[in-house]
């Protein structure tokens, strides 16, 4: 049981980490090496992303089928979780465009109410990610990636203009 009368106490724990590591930071060269390692990682993200995308599609379907408010909430949480995984990991494994599109979808989801139109917009994002994976568009996706983002922009603009009124 929470004791609401308890007065907050401030504690300054010993800085064990500082005592262990000392001073001076780490060399710039090592930061560069680590970044190069990330950029040149051989880990194949495509099969992982395909599975994550399946999770997104399943969550989308569950969201479409949700009738009660609590079902919609659970569906929205699951959908946000699945999209977040694509956003988080895409950029770590050289699929920056997937990460950016998933970030937009996540932002959209966290700022919108679940309705058929909003789910359709999320669906367009998921399909764009599917195309990126199908064509193996790594990094920013180059010209094809840019074209896809422009298409996505049109789809979102249609939603925005409809829902601004």
């Amino acid at each position: 049981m929470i004791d609401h009368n308890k007065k907050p106490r401030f504690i300054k724990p010993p800085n064990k980490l500082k005592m262990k590591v000392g001073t001076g930071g780490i060399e710039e060269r090592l930061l560069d090496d680590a970044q190069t390692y990330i950029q040149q990682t051989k880990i194949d993200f495509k099969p992982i992303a395909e599975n994550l995308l399946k999770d997104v599609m399943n969550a989308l379907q569950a969201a479409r089928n949700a009738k009660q408010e609590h079902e919609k909430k659970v569906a929205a949480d699951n959908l946000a979780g699945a999209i977040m995984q694509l956003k988080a990991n895409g950029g770590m494994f050289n699929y920056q465009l997937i990460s950016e599109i998933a970030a937009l979808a996540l932002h959209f989801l966290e700022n919108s109410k679940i309705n058929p139109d909003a789910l359709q917009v999320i669906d367009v994002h998921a399909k764009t990610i599917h195309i990126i994976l199908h064509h193996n568009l790594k990094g920013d996706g180059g010209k094809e990636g840019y074209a896809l983002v422009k298409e996505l922009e049109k789809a979102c603009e249609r939603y925005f203009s409809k829902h601004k009124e």
Partner: protein
Amino acid sequence: MAYDLTTTKILIVDDMAPMLTLCKSILSIFGFKNVYLAHNGEEALEMTIRHDPDLIITDWMMAPMDGLQFTKEVRKNPLCPNPYVPIIMMTGFSSKLRVEAARDCGITEFLVKPFTSRDLYNRIVQIIERPRQFVDASDFFGPDRRRRVIKDYQGPQRRDDDDSKQEATKEQKSASDILKKLRDEAQNLSKK
């Protein structure tokens, strides 16, 4: 003179094996020698009790125990040897609500995925050089969610300087600009 990271024990928790591998490699390049890996909160709790890590880096969404629950356990479970151990939450979530929820569970720092090696390093430096005091209150035990301002602080700055925000190439930037504009529109929509 540089940090001596050879005796520091660090625990990484993530349900995605490739992410664990990547993080372990980055930390090894930094100079960490004792890196422990766990695939979920439950496994991480067991390893925390057994190894008493000096620093924990954990993902958010995992089963059977997620990163938030794991953090609460570390702070409150009497079996955990060090309730003050610094915890970095690394996740793809970045909204204010999510960050606050993580802070309320007792995390020390928040690291948004995807991140660069420097982003991760900056969080570690924050923890070493600017540790947060702890608050023990009726409904919260964890690092103080406000940070003290140190006037003569010489270390790296946070958030705005994060490399992941600065490394976009020119082409990427044009696509990014469109995506940013759409994000802003979605944000505006939610305010109406």
